[in-house]
């Protein structure tokens, strides 16, 4: 087990290096940061001078190495746009995204599993079929459109929820939280629904389909024959055995919640790292883009690792393989 974890950690580091390399080599195609940093009356000499100062005239391996050297020490450089250390900006913005991701992830998992179990148990019921169909509406429209429609209905027509931003936040140490104020909680509702809807539908469908399959499995039939109650069968046996694929997908989806936060944050002007990233692209703020991608990579690789380890813990049959690899 220990050796397995160490090996996976080592692989993860290589993954991160590759991601950094790929990301970094892509930046040259995103655009030129210079034009956003100089005004209308700039001359070619100004452009050349700034390019030199930013080190953009250096060969690619030199730039990449410089970036890596800093990144290892937690120094991602200074934002071209804001003139502040990128690490400071990320720390400032992370709570907004993490709180949003947490709430929508929580919504997606609890609602997804609950509705999935319900629709599996009442497979032929009218309610279950209605839930199945309605839930599909959420994945049949693009996120940005759902967000805009929610704003239209709840902010403009009904006027009950804020149209953008995080509301009032309270600082706890260096963490700004929106959980402690009414306006902060109200501001969370629409973005969390927008972001969590797709994942909820996916988890629900997955739980349902796995439940259905497991419920037909021999051991569940045996359990039923032994006279165990439906409740025990459904939750103790069936649900537990659906969890392997559900954990895989859910784990992966948690990561993509953070990624999809880019869209939601843009629509709701939610001041998190996703919005920061979109702004960084717009202004070709290479240090911010690089740091964001590295951060996302670290997170995804960790989630990946955890999912694999859980897999390993839940399904004993895999242990032999894990040792072999």
């Amino acid at each position: 087990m220990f050796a397995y974890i160490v090996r996976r950690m080592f692989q993860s580091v290589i993954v991160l290096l590759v991601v950094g390399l790929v990301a970094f080599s892509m930046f040259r195609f995103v655009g030129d940061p210079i034009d956003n940093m100089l005004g209308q009356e700039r001359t070619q000499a100004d452009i050349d001078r700034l390019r030199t100062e930013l080190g953009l005239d250096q060969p690619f391996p030199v730039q990449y190495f410089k970036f890596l050297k800093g990144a290892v020490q937690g120094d991602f450089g200074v934002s071209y746009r804001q003139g502040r250390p990128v690490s400071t900006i990320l720390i400032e913005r992370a709570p907004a995204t993490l709180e949003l991701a947490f709430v929508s992830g929580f919504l997606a998992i609890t609602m997804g599993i609950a509705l999935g179990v319900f629709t599996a148990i009442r497979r032929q019921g009218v309610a279950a079929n209605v839930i199945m169909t309605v839930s599909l509406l959420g994945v049949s429209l693009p996120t940005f459109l759902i967000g805009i429609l929610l704003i239209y209905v709840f902010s403009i027509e009904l006027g009950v929820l804020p149209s953008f931003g995080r509301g009032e936040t309270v600082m706890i140490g260096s963490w700004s939280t929106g959980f402690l104020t009414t306006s902060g909680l109200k501001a969370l509702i629409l973005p969390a629904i927008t972001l969590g809807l797709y994942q909820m539908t996916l988890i629900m469908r997955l739980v349902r389909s796995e439940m259905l399959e497991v419920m037909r499995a021999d051991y569940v039939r045996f359990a039923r024959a032994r006279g165990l109650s439906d409740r025990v069968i459904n939750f103790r046996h069936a649900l537990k055995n659906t969890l392997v694929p559900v954990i895989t997908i859910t784990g992966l989806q948690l990561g993509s919640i953070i990624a999809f936060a880019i869209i939601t944050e843009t629509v709701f002007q939610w001041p998190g790292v996703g919005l920061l990233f979109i702004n960084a692209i717009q202004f070709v703020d290479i240090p911010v883009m690089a740091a964001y991608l590295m951060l996302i990579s670290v997170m995804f690789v960790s989630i990946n690792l955890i999912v694999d380890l859980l897999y390993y813990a839940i399904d004993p049959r895999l242990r032999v393989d894990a040792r072999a690899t």
Partner: protein
Amino acid sequence: MILRNSAIALAVLAATSAQAAEFKWASTTDPQTMDPHAVNSAPVLGFLNNVYEGLVRRDKDMSVEPALAVSWETIGDGEGWRFKLREGVTFHDGSGFDAQDVLFSYQRASGEAADTRSWFAPISEVTVVDDYTVDFMTTAPNPLFPSSIANWMIMDQGWTEANDAVVPDKETGNYATLNANGTGAFKVTAREPGLRTVLEPFEGWWDQAEHNITSAEFTPIQNPATAVAALLSGDVDMINPVPIQDVARLQQSGDVEVIQGIEARVIMLGFDHQAEVLKYTDDAGKPNPFRDPRVRKAVAQAVNVDAILATIMRGNAEAASQLVSPAMSGYSQANADRPAFDVEAAKALLAEAGHADGFSFGLKCPNDRYLNDEAVCQAVVSMLAQIGITAELDAMPVRNYWPELREDKYDMYLLGWSPGTFDAEHPVRFLVATPNEEKKLGSWNFGGFSNARVDELLPVIQSELDAGNRQAMLDEVAQIIQDEQVYVPMYVQPLVWGTRSTVDLTQRPDNFFLLRWVTVN
């Protein structure tokens, strides 16, 4: 005693509740720095005009009026300008303002690292005469100098030196990037870049306050639909800009008002005047037809500007005949007519130039720079198709756009130009003069147009003191630009702001939003 105190408290409370107002506004772009000399861009200068002040400032109608200088006069026969400074002015941190701060700000704003240094190109020397008198010596007579420095903001020497921000730094930032200490009507009390910036009135301001704001919060909102939603739902009091298509709907809503004006920015089509062959064409190696003024004229006649204004701009813009709008000084009344929309005439011109069968070429266009820029380009494509020339449209974000233009990757392109000096000389210097790195001429003349007469007139225009002679020369240049059809000016971009009905404010043609003219009822 207790009674008297509470009576005073009540009176204060009554006074503030009748007047006091919190104000929130949103715009697409966050000012990227609080340093007035680091970045010469409209979002930064517009925002900082609330915080910092120059020697002169622009009034509601753009006319130049005294600010930190009370008066100014030419020295001798135009060897320079003498400014008399206002006494008793203090910065937000309480320190006093005098001529040393002006000299310091000149050195800071004209230094190598400053983005504003082109403003001071005509200056040879600045001398402090006494505590409240400063002389600016110019290399040649410069009648427009006072109005050209309306956005040059004065910083406090002591504060800047104490905080180690003597040189503006846009790459890594310094203290002045995040903090501000001006003499203006508002001071910055909170700054979270990209999220919000909070301003509060400066009690010690030298001028009489016209506003009734107690605190003002700015939030950048990139997505136009979100901004409109925020305004409609009352989450913000003012947005800039309002998407053109939402103007009518907002006007119908009782809670919201739309304030419209004509911006200084002229939207035009530009050509490659130098390339031998077309770069993006189906018939490879075809000689570049846009070097022929007849073809450029055909394009001008094929574009139905009125249709663009009626549909895409929804009647919110005005057609343009030259590189500046009629509101700018030096506008040429003699050349106020633009080529008539006439498909047949355009076809005839093409045939005359030997392109009766048409040709295909590449049109470059930004899609996030000007109002509805992509839609306008699409419309241009279909209008040019009517005269038989096929434009291959490549629309891209502005971050990719300028590099492409600099590398000459276009046959035709869209450009918007707003003259920083509000004078007709400005676009001639940047867009028409033969590119010359040393003299800092033609730095945005991507197509490389060159005309000896224009190059000859430009320095004379710049130093001519007589308004009549100057206008005559500007008329001649405008005439040349029209005859040669160097660009195809289409329209002057509109300014469209949205406010809650409870708000009164002033919209200036330079798209600067000044809090000192805001009242909330």
